[in-house]
C-alpha cells in the first residue's frame, strides 16, 4: 500500500458545516409525553398517536440488538432530542421563497435544486432536519394523480392511504430501531402512484442532519398501485460533528400487481475523522413488499459514509412471478464499520431474486455482507442468484461474508458466490506502464469492480457515485 494512496484516502470531509437556522428543539429524552408532544406539534389525528404509543410500548419491552458485527459505545436514548424543526415561516409556493441561508447550504453541497429540477426533470422534496421545507414539481405530478409529499402532510391530506399502508411492511415491533422510529418519526416522504401510472420523472429527496445531537428518524412510504411504476432516489450528505448522531430510518415499499418500484440511495454522511471519532450511526430498516403478481422491487445503494452503516434493504416476494433485486456498493475507510446486505423472502410461485454486493474496505475499517435467502415451502420454482465480492485495501481492514441460505422447496434453484481480492501490484504496474498514474488507475479499477452496481443507478447518481468513490479512496491503495 503506497503513500500516495494513503494520502488520497485521508481527504477531509468536504461537506462539514453547520447552517445557522433557528431550530425548535424538544427537550432531550424519550417518554410518552415527548411522543404526545411530537404528535400534537404535527397536529396528528388520534390514530397516528395510537400508532406511535403502541410502537413506544413495544420499544420499551425490546432490547438493543447485539448480533451485528459492529462495535460502538452504548447509546443513551435519553440524551437525544427527538424533535427539531426549523421555525415555520410561511407556506412556500416557489423556490424563491425558501430561506436564502438554506439555499446556500444546498449550494455548498452541490445540489443545484432549481437547476437540477429544471434540467433533469427531478422533483426534489427537501427534508431539512425532519421537516419538509419545499416541494417542487408537485403540481406536475398531481396532474397524473401522483401524490408526492412529506409524510406529515400526507397524514393530514390523505389519512386513509397512510392508515392503510403505514406499518404493514415493517410492523411497529419489527425490531428495536424500527419500533423507535415508529414511535418518534418526525417526517419523511410519502409517495403514491395510482393504478396504471408510470411516474414521468425520477422522484428524489435529500436528507440532511443538521441540528447537533438531534437523532433523525425518517419515515418513507412508497406505494405503487396496479401497473404503476416509479424510480425513487435518496441522496445524503451531512455536516461534520464530533458527537455521534443516531439515524434510524424506516422505509416501506409496497408494489401491487404488475407494479415496479426502484429505490436508489447514495449515502455520504459524515464518517468520523481518521481516528474514528464522530460520525453518524446509520441504523436503517428498509423493506419492500412485492405484494401483487409480476411486481418488481429493486434496491440500489452506494454506501460510502457513516461511522456505522447497518442496514438490510429487503424484499418480501409474495406475489406470483414477483422479482426482487439488490445492488450494493459499500465503501469503508479509516474506522468505518458496515454490516449490510439484504433479505430475499420468497413466498410466491416463480419468484426471482438477484443480489449483487460489492464491498471495498480500506484503512482500519470493517465491512460485512450479511444476507438471507429464504425459499418458503410455497415458493415453487423460485430462483435466486447472489454474488458478493469484497476488495481489501491494506492489511488493517477486514471483510466478512455471512450468507444465510434456507431452502424449503426442492423446485427452487439458489446460487451463491463470493470472492475476495485486492488491487494487485501487477494491475497497477500495467496501468503505469500505459502512462496512467496510480491515482487514476485505482479509480478505474474500483469503478470496474463496481460497474455492475453503478449501471443500475440513474444517470446523475451514477456520476456522483463514481466521483464519490474516487475521492473516498484517494490515497489508500498502492
Amino acid at each position, binding site marked *: 500500500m503506497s503513500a500516495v494512496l494513503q494520502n488520497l484516502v485521508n481527504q477531509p470531509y468536504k461537506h462539514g458545516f453547520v447552517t445557522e437556522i433557528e431550530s425548535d428543539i424538544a427537550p432531550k429524552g424519550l417518554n410518552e409525553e415527548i411522543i404526545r408532544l411530537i404528535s400534537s406539534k404535527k397536529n396528528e389525528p388520534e390514530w397516528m398517536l395510537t400508532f406511535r404509543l403502541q410502537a413506544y410500548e413495544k420499544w420499551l419491552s425490546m432490547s438493543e440488538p447485539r*448480533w451485528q458485527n459492529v462495535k460502538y459505545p452504548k447509546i443513551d436514548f435519553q440524551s437525544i432530542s427527538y424533535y427539531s424543526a426549523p421555525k415555520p415561516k410561511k407556506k412556500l409556493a416557489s423556490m424563491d421563497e425558501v430561506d436564502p441561508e438554506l439555499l446556500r447550504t444546498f449550494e455548498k453541497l452541490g445540489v443545484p435544486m432549481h437547476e437540477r429540477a429544471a434540467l433533469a426533470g427531478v422533483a426534489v422534496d427537501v427534508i431539512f432536519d425532519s421537516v419538509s421545507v419545499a416541494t417542487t414539481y408537485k403540481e406536475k405530478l398531481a396532474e397524473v394523480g401522483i401524490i408526492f409529499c412529506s409524510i406529515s402532510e400526507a397524514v393530514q391530506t390523505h389519512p386513509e392511504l397512510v392508515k392503510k399502508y403505514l406499518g404493514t411492511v415493517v410492523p411497529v415491533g419489527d425490531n428495536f430501531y424500527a419500533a423507535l422510529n415508529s414511535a418518534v418519526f418526525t417526517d419523511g416522504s410519502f409517495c403514491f402512484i395510482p393504478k396504471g401510472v408510470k411516474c414521468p420523472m425520477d422522484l428524489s429527496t435529500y436528507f440532511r442532519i443538521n441540528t447537533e445531537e438531534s437523532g433523525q428518524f425518517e419515515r418513507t412510504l412508497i406505494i405503487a398501485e396496479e401497473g404503476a411504476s416509479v424510480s425513487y432516489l435518496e441522496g445524503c450528505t451531512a455536516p461534520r460533528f464530533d458527537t455521534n448522531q443516531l439515524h434510524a430510518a424506516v422505509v416501506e415499499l409496497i408494489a401491487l400487481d404488475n407494479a415496479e418500484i426502484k429505490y436508489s440511495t447514495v449515502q455520504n454522511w459524515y464518517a468520523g475523522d481518521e481516528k474514528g471519532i464522530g460520525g453518524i450511526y446509520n441504523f436503517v430498516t428498509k423493506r419492500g413488499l412485492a405484494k401483487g403478481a409480476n411486481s418488481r422491487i429493486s434496491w440500489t445503494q452506494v454506501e460510502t459514509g457513516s461511522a456505522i452503516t447497518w442496514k438490510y434493504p429487503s424484499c418480501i416476494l409474495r406475489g406470483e412471478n414477483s422479482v426482487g433485486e439488490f445492488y450494493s456498493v459499500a465503501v469503508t475507510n479509516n474506522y468505518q464499520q458496515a454490516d449490510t446486505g439484504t433479505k430475499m423472502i420468497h413466498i410466491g410461485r416463480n419468484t426471482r431474486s438477484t443480489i449483487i454486493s460489492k464491498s471495498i474496505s480500506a484503512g482500519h475499517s470493517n465491512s460485512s455482507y450479511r444476507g438471507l435467502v429464504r425459499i418458503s415451502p410455497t415458493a415453487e420454482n423460485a430462483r435466486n442468484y447472489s454474488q458478493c465480492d469484497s476488495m481489501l485495501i491494506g492489511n488493517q481492514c477486514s471483510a466478512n461474508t455471512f450468507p444465510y441460505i434456507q*431452502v424449503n422447496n426442492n423446485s427452487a434453484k439458489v446460487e451463491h458466490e463470493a470472492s475476495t481480492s485486492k488491487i494487485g501490484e501487477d494491475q497497477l504496474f500495467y496501468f503505469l506502464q500505459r502512462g496512467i498514474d496510480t491515482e487514476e488507475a485505482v479509480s478505474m479499477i474500483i469503478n470496474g469492480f463496481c460497474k455492475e452496481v453503478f449501471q443500475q443507478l440513474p444517470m446523475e447518481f451514477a456520476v456522483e457515485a463514481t466521483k464519490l468513490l474516487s475521492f473516498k479512496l484517494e490515497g489508500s491503495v498502492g
Partner: protein
Amino acid sequence: MSTATSHSYLDHLVQSWQKPSTSSWLDQLRANAMDSAGALRMPTTQDEEWRFTDISPLSRLPYPVAQSTFKVQLSDIEHYYLEEASCRLVFVDGQFAPELSNIAHNAGAIIGNLSSLLPTHGDTIARYLGQLAEFENDVFTALNTAFLRDSACIIIPANKSVTTPIHLLFISRQTEVTSYPRCLLIAEAGSHATIIEDYITTEEASYVTNSIVEMNLADSAHINHIRVQRDNQQAFHIGNCTVSLAHASQYHSVSITLGAYISRYNLNVILSGEGAECAADGLVLISERQLADTHTFIDHAQPHGKSRQLHKCIVDSMAHGVFNGKIMVRPHAQLTDSAQLSRNLLLTNKARIDTKPQLEIFADDVKCAHGATVGQLDKEEIFYLKSRGLSDLTARNLLTYAFGGEVIDRIPISSLKRQLEEIVLARTQIS
C-alpha cells in the same frame, strides 16, 4: 417449561459423575471438564451455532453413561472390517475391545488404547490429550472429557510412513445410554498415515454418541482422515474433531454422514504453521426425519495456507440438512488460498436445507472464494440422458448417485469406497 425438565439429559449426567479418587493429571482434566459441564447448559435454537438444529428431543432423555459389560459377536461386525486395514482398534460403547482389535501389524506406529499406552507414553499423551478439544464453551466436549475413560491413541513417529490404513471402529451396542468415543492422534514431523474413523451399531433403538477426535500434525506431516457415521436412524450423534496443522503439514479429510436421527459434526482445522494445506470434503445423505448438521471452521492463522472444501448434501423425504462453513483468515495470514463449495440436492418438496458458507477475512493479499447452490437435478442433464435412451427414472437415479459419488471418489481406500458406493447406490435409487 422449567429448566429442570428441559435439561434433564445434562443434569442427569452431571449428577451421575463421580469425583475421581486420585489427583493425577488425567483426573484433574476430568474434574476441570466437569466444572465446565456443570456451568454450561444444553444449546438451544436461540444459540446462533445451533440455530437450525433443535436438539431438544435429546435434552429430555436421561441417558446414563454406557457400561462396559456388553460383548459383541464377531459375526455381527465382521463385515465392517476392511481388507486393506491390517491395523484395527475396536471400541464397544467407547470401551476398548482387545479381542476384536488387531494392533500387531502397526508398521512402526504406536497404536493402542489410553490405559495400555499410559505407562510407556504417558508424558506425550499428557501433553496433547484435551489440548485441542477445548471444553470451556462446549457442553458436549466438556461431557466427553469429564467421562473420559478410554481413548484410541495413535502416535506416528517422525518420518515414519504407515502405508496401510488404521481402522478405528466404534460400535454402539447398548441402547438408551451415552457413549464417549475418543481419539488422539500425534503425527510427528514428516510422518504419514491414513486414519479411518467409523461409527456403526448393531442395535435398532436410540442411544447417544458423543465423540471427540484430536489430531496434532507436526511439521510436514501428512494425514488422511476418513470419517464414516452410520448410526441407526434413532440415534443421536454429536462429533467434534479438532485438527492442528504445523508448518507445511497436510490434512485431507472426507466425512460421510449417513445415519442418526439428529447428528452434528464439528470440524475445526487450525492452520497454525506456514504453508499448511487442508482439504475437507463431506457428503451427507439423509432421508425420513433425519437431521444432519455439519459445522466446519477452517482457521488460517499463518501465511501461505491453502484450503479446499467440497460439501454435498442429498436430502430426501422430510429430512433436514444444515451446513455452516466458516473460513477465517487472520490478519497476518497473507497469501492464503481458500476455496469452499457447498452443494445441495433436495429430492422432495418436504426436504429442507439451511446452508451458510461464511468468510471472515482480515488480510488483504489473499484469494478466497466460496459458493453455494441448492436445487434439484438439472433438467438439461436428465434430458441428455433420456436422449441416450435412459428412462426418466434411471436418468434421475444415475444423476443422484453421481452427485454423491464425487465425494466418495475422494476416499483412497478401495474396499471402503466400494461399501459406501453400494450404500449410496441403494439409498439413491427410487423405483
